[in-house]
């Protein structure tokens, strides 16, 4: 049993249910292969609302080249994306839309909160701004900075890659994960 450090959310990747996957060589190496494959093929959905979006453009651009990680196919359709990159301020008016986009994404999905605004509200501690997107959707990785340098965004992606690589295939069906989603009031499609 491996615990991914997340005190707030307590995401625990549990061992897959017995009988479904044994501990045999095949299952574990399949897990590994799938992990490796997913890791190198993360298609981001840039939910860019403000300044961080411009830095994301810089990350996509030649100098930093997000593509090196297999992540250059930006898919604006939530169905096709693996990673929701929330970049920029999420106002309360935007919150439901963000949640809807998250719900539309196909499992497995990951979320990265890029920049101060998305992670915590940043300097905008105001009546109209959501103080961190983790109030409405579960977040896997936070990237600090306002806006973060492209290096930091890439760093965040690499954190995600670590997470992706080590995730067991059973995690998305585990009761813990279902409970996590339920705590956010998100309907799960598969169960």
């Amino acid at each position: 049993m491996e615990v991914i450090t997340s005190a707030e959310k307590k995401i625990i990747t549990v061992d897959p249910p017995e009988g479904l996957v044994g501990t045999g060589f095949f299952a574990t190496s399949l897990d590994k292969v799938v992990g490796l494959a997913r890791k190198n093929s993360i298609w981001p959905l840039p939910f860019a609302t403000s300044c961080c979006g411009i830095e994301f453009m810089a990350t996509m651009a030649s100098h930093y080249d997000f593509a090196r990680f297999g992540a250059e196919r930006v898919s604006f359709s939530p169905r096709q994306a693996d990673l929701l990159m929330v970049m920029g301020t999420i106002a309360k008016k935007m919150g439901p839309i963000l949640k809807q986009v998250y719900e539309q994404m196909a499992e497995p999905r990951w979320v990265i909160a890029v920049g101060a605004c998305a992670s915590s509200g940043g300097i905008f501690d105001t009546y109209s701004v959501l103080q961190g997107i983790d109030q409405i959707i579960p977040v896997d990785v936070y990237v600090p900075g306002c806006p973060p340098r492209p290096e930091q965004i890439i760093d965040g992606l690499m954190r995600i890659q670590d997470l992706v690589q080590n995730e067991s295939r059973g995690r998305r069906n585990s009761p813990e994960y279902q409970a996590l989603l339920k705590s956010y009031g998100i309907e799960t499609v598969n169960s």
Partner: protein
Amino acid sequence: MQALSNRKKVLEQKKMTLVERLYLPAIFQGMGITLRHFFRRKATVHYPEQKRSVPAVFRGLHVLRKDENGAERCTACGLCAVACPAEAITMEGGERKAGEEHLYREEKYAVKYEINMLRCIFCGFCEDACPKEAIFLETTFAPASYDRNDFIYGKDRLVEGFKRHELVSPITTLKEAQEANK
């Protein structure tokens, strides 16, 4: 409308010439340009293996500096917290006890000093505000992490000497800048 200043210059939309109407010349010209880039040296910096240089003044992660004797400079005056537009700094002052002179330079010091890196916008006002040159923004970064509690940086991670997350190499020299475009 009449010209408002003597600087006006009208840009006419030129009619397309016959050659331009044929699509292909412009397309081939464009393809020539992209092909030239195809063989050009790539601009990409292979982060994380290679790191781009940033200037020494870059506003990265905060450090609480010590003086030449290894004593903490901070005196918990709170100016940095006041200057912080994101209200990300929290501190608690304490009186220096006898025998701690080698640890703290002034009579007052920060018992607790926390910066919420998720709130911080790295504007550098704390550095400007500090009268003791204690807080300083380095060229390193706060790394991404899985847990938001991980971003409350206490003194353990702020005081000078803590191993930093080196994302970029620190200083650009003039010579490097001159060579940058060769």
